[in-house]
């Protein structure tokens, strides 16, 4: 099975055009064909879609569906409260709400409201990893709803605001400007 798939990969690589001559390559933006063994097989759109769960800060990758803080409160009360505490505080695991205005103090309280720069990250993380005992058990609508509830707990969106693929990337997080990248490309 594995061998057959690998051979399919070889076949597919063989169909790609042969590399241009050296003189052409200098003027063409097209990179040379792979020099490696080419033992991968083409990944189909369906195969990629089945595992591509990531959401970018621009909202790329957000699925259909929507949720409100009110709906999210119900999910939170059954799936999240045991670890994160009532209203996102005083749980045994990470505090999720409050802490705004503490980042300059000796004991900064880092929560979604005080620290996280992007609202999309909340949805991405809830969908890929939460609730801790049963990740991937929430529907996309439930993930939107829990995200909405957590944003509302932090005073970032109103109680009746609907979070979906359009509205979530537009949410302005309080600490959006609080980060500097230490990585400088090309250095």
């Amino acid at each position: 099975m594995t061998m057959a798939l690998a051979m399919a990969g070889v076949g597919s690589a063989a169909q790609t055009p042969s590399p241009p001559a050296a003189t052409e390559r200098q003027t063409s933006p097209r990179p040379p064909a792979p020099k490696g063994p080419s033992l991968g097989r083409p990944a189909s759109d369906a195969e990629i879609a089945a595992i591509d769960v990531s959401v970018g800060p621009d909202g790329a990758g957000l699925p259909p569906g929507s949720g409100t803080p009110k709906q999210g409160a119900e999910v939170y009360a059954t799936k999240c409260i045991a670890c994160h505490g009532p209203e996102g505080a005083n749980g045994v695991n990470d505090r999720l709400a409050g802490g705004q205005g503490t980042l300059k103090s000796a004991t900064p309280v880092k929560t979604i409201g005080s620290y996280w720069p992007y609202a999309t990250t909340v949805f991405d993380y809830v969908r890929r990893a939460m609730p801790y005992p049963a990740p991937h058990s929430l529907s996309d609508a439930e993930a939107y709803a829990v995200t909405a509830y957590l944003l509302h707990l932090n005073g970032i969106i109103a109680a009746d605001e609907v979070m979906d693929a359009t509205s979530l990337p537009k949410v302005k997080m309080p600490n959006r400007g609080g980060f500097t990248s230490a990585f400088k490309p090309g250095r």
Partner: protein
Amino acid sequence: MVKPKTHDLEPVAGNGLLHRRLFLTGSLAGLSLLRAVPLSAQQNVPDWMKAPGGPLRPYGERSPHESSVQRLVGPMPGTTGSGSSRTPLEFLEGMITPNSLHFERNHSGVPDIPPAQHRLVIHGLVRRPLTFELEALTRYPLISRMHFIECSGNSTALYAAQPAQAGAGAIHGLVSCAEWTGVPLGTLLDEVGVRPEGRWLLAEGADAAAMSRSVPMEKALDDAMIAMYQNGERLRPENGYPMRLLLPGWEGNTNVKWLRRLKVTAAPSMTKDETSKYTDSLPDGTAMQFTFPMGVKSVITSPSGGLKMQGAGLYQISGVAWSGAGRIRRVDVSADGGKTWAPAALSAPVLPKALTRFRMAWRWSGGPAVLMSRAVDDTGAVQPSREALLGKRGATYRYHFHALQCWAVAATGEVRNVYV
């Protein structure tokens, strides 16, 4: 047996430090270091010589007399598999960490992945998205490299105002070093054909957290590896079986374990573990993000906190040094709290982005002493004092602590962590 020359035993720095020549020339053979085990009595045949020993075994285990050497396990509340376990540095020697003692940092436990069902998919801003079976990847030209991995949260206890009373492993044990074997990531990226706008990769694991980090394309094309073997055997489950990303010298969590997906993107994906965690808070309330390389660092592992000296006399100071920027160039050791220093012997091989073992001979007077080590890497970066590090960063930085570690030896022989 070569007897040490008298001048080899003369101090080179304060409070009893002896010349590293002792380690460089092998003249230690004639010395009775206090680590040495006394000779057995010649007359008595021990029990284990009076009958044939134990059976051959298909899979080896260490001596039962060493079973107390364990990782220091610290799960997060309510979990058994998340959190970290630390390498007991004070009980190990050399540069390689045994696989059973390599540190762990897991974000949602250790998955049990059947290798035939695992895939690595590379997609996104590429010309030919490809799926790789494990079996296919093992048929690529493999490379082997010795590299440390260090969690960026290692040694974070030393940001605290009071020195933690803990041993070298408990404080610094989120670093380990292994020989990793795998496929250069650049080979696979060449095959998928990265589009010019693809400047980052999202690396994602197949654990229950689907742990994910964004990695710059520069690093992926430099020395990144898809590692499948660890010290000659397949990766341990807790270190990413069947495959992990290896980014030599970069903070541990970017070396994504159980790697299942690499998505080429134009910009960072801003995942939870590069925004809410693994970002470094500054006194002005802002934070640094993507502080990838681990700083030049060293720690004396013997003697160290929790160990006890066995009376005045000749000792071996031993420790490890490393840098995410390259090779260790030198390590200086002090026995008088930093007043005087002398260079330690570096044990070959000294490899880039790998643990380097350093050693120093020391005649302990039996009086108080403060032992310190200070590493310099081949970029010229010098391991800073704690005071200098905190002066620059503040105490809430939390990650990337790489300042000098100081161990105070009391007249009783007890060793403890101190700030000087």
